[in-house]
């Protein structure tokens, strides 16, 4: 892809994001914290507005017109999500509040009931706390044991180590697709294939991949996959769990309440069919509809295009960062086409602590993340107390990377002038 085309994608879409067109501390906002949460296009904001202005009612309950419109829109969004990740049927998409809740659903419904003392759960050291703590709960309750795949020299998922750890005792492999800290893209199809040879189930945390690249759950062949709407142009409060049909059918409900039942008696109940069995209570209706609108928006642009553009940005970002001697980046360097990593860079700068850096950049209108990005064990493994992270999305431009680099250099100089 040429630079001219690249400019076209970001410049074509920027007008769709009202929030990007503002000044922060007297400078144009440069939003580089997309791995934490993305911005929302007008199409999504309008879908929310439209829903509340014209269709608002509870779903699956009323016979009246508004309820039926709300139900259609809510269920229509499910079809969109199913198509977006190529799920075979719509029943395989369960709405959750976010990815964390989706993982907890699997941990409580499946993990707590299926795992026995001595069974092994395989994670990696790069997991987000969301894909760690629920399994700690399961291990504590069931006596299952947690195992952790470590990193290669290039700070990527060590497939050889994975092969050496896995055994017939492994009942679950739960790994992140794209690390929110290292940016590496993990070989999840290979991981899934190997895990299945040992009869283990596979959960993929796709929070950082679904927003940025085409995802095909059938090609991956994973048993579950989770993602959060707010990182993919949708509102907060909505995410989803994909699962294999037989497996979801065999899993007991996670939360009880309205919506998830078939027949209720005083002492027992029967449950609704999929996916409603897992959706207790009044759901996040507007947010689910917003997720549908986000999926439409992304699909219209094309996930291939988004991914290709972000690869170009990745190359440019690392090219610039690599020229600053004080900067140390984490995760793999991009290969020639950046097909091995995401458009984000976690880094340290020696003298400038990530928090101070974030404050300094904020004064220039540049939003980056500083801290441990919910991967404390990974930071410990890397021997880094905290890192700074710039994470991009398809509406970011090279000019924004330039602005970030200029301010980063100024911050290093500012601290350096005192440190001499």
């Amino acid at each position, binding site marked *: 892809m040429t630079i001219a085309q690249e400019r076209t994608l970001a410049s074509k879409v920027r007008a769709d994001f009202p929030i990007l067109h503002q000044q922060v*501390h*007297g*400078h144009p906002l440069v939003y580089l914290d997309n791995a934490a949460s993305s911005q929302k296009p007008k199409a999504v904001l309008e879908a929310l507005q439209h829903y509340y202005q014209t269709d608002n009612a509870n779903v699956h309950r009323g016979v009246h017109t508004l309820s039926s419109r709300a139900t259609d829109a809510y269920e229509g969004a499910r079809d969109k999500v199913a198509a977006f990740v190529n799920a075979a049927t719509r029943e395989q998409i369960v709405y959750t509040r976010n990815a964390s809740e989706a993982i907890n659903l699997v941990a409580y419904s499946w993990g707590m009931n299926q795992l026995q003392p001595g069974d092994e759960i395989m994670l990696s050291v790069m997991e987000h706390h969301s894909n760690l703590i629920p399994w700690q709960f399961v291990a504590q309750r069931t006596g299952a044991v947690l195992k952790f795949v470590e990193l290669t020299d290039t700070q990527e998922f060590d497939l050889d180590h994975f092969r050496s750890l896995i055994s017939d005792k492994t009942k679950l492999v739960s790994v992140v697709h794209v690390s929110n800290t290292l940016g590496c893209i993990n070989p999840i199809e290979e991981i899934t294939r190997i895990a299945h040879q040992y009869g283990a189930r596979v959960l993929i945390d796709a929070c950082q991949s679904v927003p940025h690249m085409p995802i095909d759950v059938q090609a991956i062949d994973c048993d579950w996959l989770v993602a959060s709407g707010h990182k993919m142009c949708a509102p907060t409060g909505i995410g989803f769990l994909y699962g294999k049909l037989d497996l979801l059918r065999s899993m007991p409900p996670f939360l009880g309440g309205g919506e998830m039942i078939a027949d209720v008696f005083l002492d027992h109940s029967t449950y609704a069919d999929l996916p409603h069995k897992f959706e207790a209570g009044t759901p996040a209706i507007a947010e689910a509809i917003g997720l549908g609108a986000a999926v439409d928006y992304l699909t219209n642009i094309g996930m291939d295009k988004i991914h290709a553009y972000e690869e170009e940005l990745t190359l440019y970002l690392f090219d610039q960062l690599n020229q600053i001697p004080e900067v140390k980046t984490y995760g793999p360097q991009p290969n020639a086409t950046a097909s091995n990593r995401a458009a984000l860079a976690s880094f340290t700068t020696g*003298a400038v*602590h*990530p*928090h*101070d850096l974030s*404050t*300094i950049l904020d*004064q*220039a209108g540049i939003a980056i993340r*500083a*801290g*441990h990005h919910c991967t*404390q064990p990974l*930071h410990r493994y890397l021997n880094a*107390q*905290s890192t700074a992270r710039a994470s991009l999305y398809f509406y970011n431009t090279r000019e924004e990377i330039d602005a970030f680099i200029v*301010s980063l250099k*100024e911050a290093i100089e*500012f*601290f350096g002038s*005192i*440190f001499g």
Partner: protein
Amino acid sequence: MSLNNLRDLYQQVILERYKKPRNRGKTNPVDRYQKGHNPSCGDTIELTLKLDGDSDRIEDVKFEGEGCAIAMASVDLMAEALKGRTTAEALEMVQKFQAMMRGEAEFPQELRKLNVMQGVAQFPVRIKCANLSWHTLKAALELQQGVKPAGFVSNE
């Protein structure tokens, strides 16, 4: 970049203390120990105090730990300012520092060095960085002698 704004925050003294803290280490003996930690940013300090039991005075304060320039300068300046103070005076200083972070107070002449932290009040998200050491001190002082401290205290 608004470097002027930043110079208010990152006063020379703060950056110097960040680079070359004067009160790193552990007191001997350790009469009080408390760990302070802000989980969302990772800043961690381990504060130790040496007390004179008779006069209830703080004889020495030291710290270990890692964090941003604001947190590190704050704990280093605090350690210095506390030497020779009674625990009651130290608790008053905690109050005063927290009021200063709200822009409502400053320290008198003999403690004016602490006033270099005043600029932090203009950066609300960073106040917890400056406060961490004082928050930890308060927990250390309020701890009964010989009682084991809770894992850590946080002011997030």
